[in-house]
């Protein structure tokens, strides 16, 4: 159970990292198109459509993995400690992260949000991922003391 929780959480972060990279590349490419410059980067970077697709797939995968990772964490906690919610800062952040990516996924899926805005949000989302993964443990005592 612990390994499932750890692996799924780590893999979801990796997927969000991929979404972040695709998002940044999208923003660069889209800026070049709007400014009508065809530099070296312009030729090397993939099309907006494929960057957008990678971004969406990565967010979908990351969201699924995060769901499994968090659920298994709660189950594990319930088995170990007898309560699923321990009040750990990482738990709050994870729920926030989960809700954030769910919102992003739904907006993108229903096509209310497209292109640059999705890319911007996935970049913003990843900073929350970084904070959850790295920062939380340093700010407040946590049950997830790695890094």
């Amino acid at each position: 159970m612990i390994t499932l929780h750890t692996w799924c959480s780590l893999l979801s972060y990796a997927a969000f990292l991929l979404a972040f990279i695709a998002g940044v590349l999208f923003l660069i490419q889209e800026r070049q198109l709007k400014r009508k410059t065809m530099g070296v980067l312009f030729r090397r970077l993939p099309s907006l459509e494929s960057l957008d697709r990678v971004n969406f797939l990565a967010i979908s995968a990351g969201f699924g993995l995060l769901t499994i990772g968090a659920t298994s964490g709660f189950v594990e906690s319930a088995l170990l400690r007898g309560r699923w919610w321990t009040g750990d800062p990482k738990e709050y952040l994870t729920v926030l992260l989960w809700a954030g990516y769910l919102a992003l996924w739904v907006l993108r899926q229903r096509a209310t949000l497209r292109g640059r805005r999705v890319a911007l949000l996935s970049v913003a989302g990843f900073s929350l991922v970084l904070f959850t993964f790295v920062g939380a443990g340093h700010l407040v005592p946590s049950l997830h003391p790695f890094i």
Partner: protein
Amino acid sequence: MHIVLIGLNYRSAPLEFRERFAFRREDLPQAFSRLREEVGLREAAILSTCNRVEIYAGAPALDGTLERLHRFLSRHADIELSGLSPRLYSYAEPQRVVRHLFSVASGLDSMVLGEAEILRQVKDAYEAAQAAGATGKLLNGLFQRALNTGKTVRSRTGIGRGCTSVGTVAVQLAEKIFGDLSRAVVLLIGAGKIGELTLKRLAERGAGELRVMSRTLERSADLAAAYRATPVPAAALPAQLLEADIAITSASAPVFLLRREELVLAMRQRHHRPLCIVDLGVPRNVEPSSGGLENVYLFNVDDLQALVHQCHHERQRALGESEDIINQKVDGFLSWWREEFRMSNVECSPSS
């Protein structure tokens, strides 16, 4: 064995002159046998494209070979020798012949600097000569190295990079937005010539669905027939705008065909699906501020023209680098040639 070249190209002769020299593929075997018998060549290859006709040859001796080649071409084109000579160039110095062919294969001698088509044409010319049994060790070595040079120059320098016409630039921009164009719906609005050319380029790149909208139904029908496009009535513009991925406007109209507020509305209804607009109209057909809308990518004639210039500029810059590679390859070939043909040279002309 000596290497000689005789030919004419777009710089030395106008089209109505060049076209009389063109060799059709089916004429080649006969031309090769005449070159062997009448001119006394041992090996020959003929490069015949719309921009040039060139004969590369291996001759056992030089005396009289170029004169006989002049006469051969004069008969072939049915043009008096006196009128012909100023239009032709001929080289018998191995270094010049080799450098010329290597430059041609690399696209350095082309009308559009760095174009890729010529490399395939050189390959075809070589294969046709080889199939007819007209090449030997010399021309096999020469052409294989020319093809290799062309490939090296293209891959190592920026000579073939970018786009050289408004149409191809538009295609490249569209591909950077949509990736594969096979699912893209293209809408051409108006009947301008460059609009049609752009449509043609998009069709060549496999654009999924083409639609044409013109003020006169006749013109729409013509375009539709020529590019397997669907004609759509001008009144359907708002509805068409919801389905199109790429819109090309090429109309002469005193007012904007597409206004910003119409596009705002359309984008909302399209659920912000990206829209690429290529405005080729002068005066412009699309309200310029529309380019600021999210997911709308608007390019006008000046934008495209600037990208074409940028590309030409980059190709010019790659010229020096390309010439360095060609020089190296020419030296490589010449040392191979001297090594391989030293013996036969002595056999042919003991005095040299």
